[in-house]
């Protein structure tokens, strides 16, 4: 099996935790911090750091609201994030025939 060339992939998404965040958000319209934490099972600090990186890159957007008087931050993929994620998936898919050969 040929080695998978990770260098051709978007580094920002290829990190396992950020990939998990992007995948979890790609499955829904939006998700709040606690739902993402459940999905990817990260600590608050770690998740917050990776969310910030994705937000700074413009891949996700945060929307702060109040729900039952409690602050809730909801995250959603931006159009840029959706495009980057789709491109990442395309690159992965393009590798499949090579690795199966």
């Amino acid at each position, binding site marked *: 099996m040929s080695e*998978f060339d990770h260098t051709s992939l978007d580094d920002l998404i290829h*990190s396992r935790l950020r990939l998990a965040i992007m995948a979890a958000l790609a*499955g*829904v319209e939006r998700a709040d*911090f606690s*739902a993402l934490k459940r*999905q990817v*099972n990260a600590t608050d600090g770690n998740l917050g750091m990776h969310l910030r990186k994705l937000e700074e890159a413009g891949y996700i957007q945060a929307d702060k609201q109040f729900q*039952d008087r409690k602050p809730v931050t909801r995250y959603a993929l931006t159009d840029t994030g959706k495009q980057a994620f789709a491109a990442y998936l395309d690159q992965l898919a393009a590798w499949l025939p090579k690795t199966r050969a």
Partner: protein
Amino acid sequence: MNTLSTNPPRGDAEKRQPEQDLAFIRQLMERSRRVTVLGGHYFVVWGLLVEVGLLLSWLSFERQLALTPALIWGPLIVAGYAYTFWAQRRDRAVEGAESRDGYLIGLVWLCFGICSLIVLLADLWFQVIPSRALAGLFATLSGAAFFLHGSLAGIGWLRNVGILWWLAAIPLYLWTGAHTLPAYAVLLFGLQVIPGWVLAQERRRLLATEAGVSL
């Protein structure tokens, strides 16, 4: 327990294979979406409320109770909608996510509720729909709602429940009468309460699994 690891396999990100990543992505996308499209507890609660209504209606029909349809169905419908609004708020907080499919499924059931109410009023109030057609009509509407819910959620067996409702509507149209009330109650239990319980269990398991993911 079915868990996902957000750690790179063997701690080496460079050695990951695309198959692993794609499987990981697919699983996470499906899991985050699925919890938003189940909602079986609504089926259970509404199913049981309607069961009570059917039982009371049947007893009234058999002259064992002196209750008007409005007295029977009014409080039950109010109780059902009160539960729905309360549960929706709670679900939003517990699930913490919204999906387009979940939103569309919500609309399907909203449409079902409105259509059912109009049909009920058309019978009870305007008296333009014969009462003997009600069971068949509700079974037809239920079939449509279950079929759409199953299709949107990607749950094949739930889509088939919709088809079973449509099939069940045929004898309800053919053999009308007071016996359709207990017959509909049995159908409701088998084709709504039990599927709802199954979905609610899956939802609970999914939320519990997420909470217990091990890295």
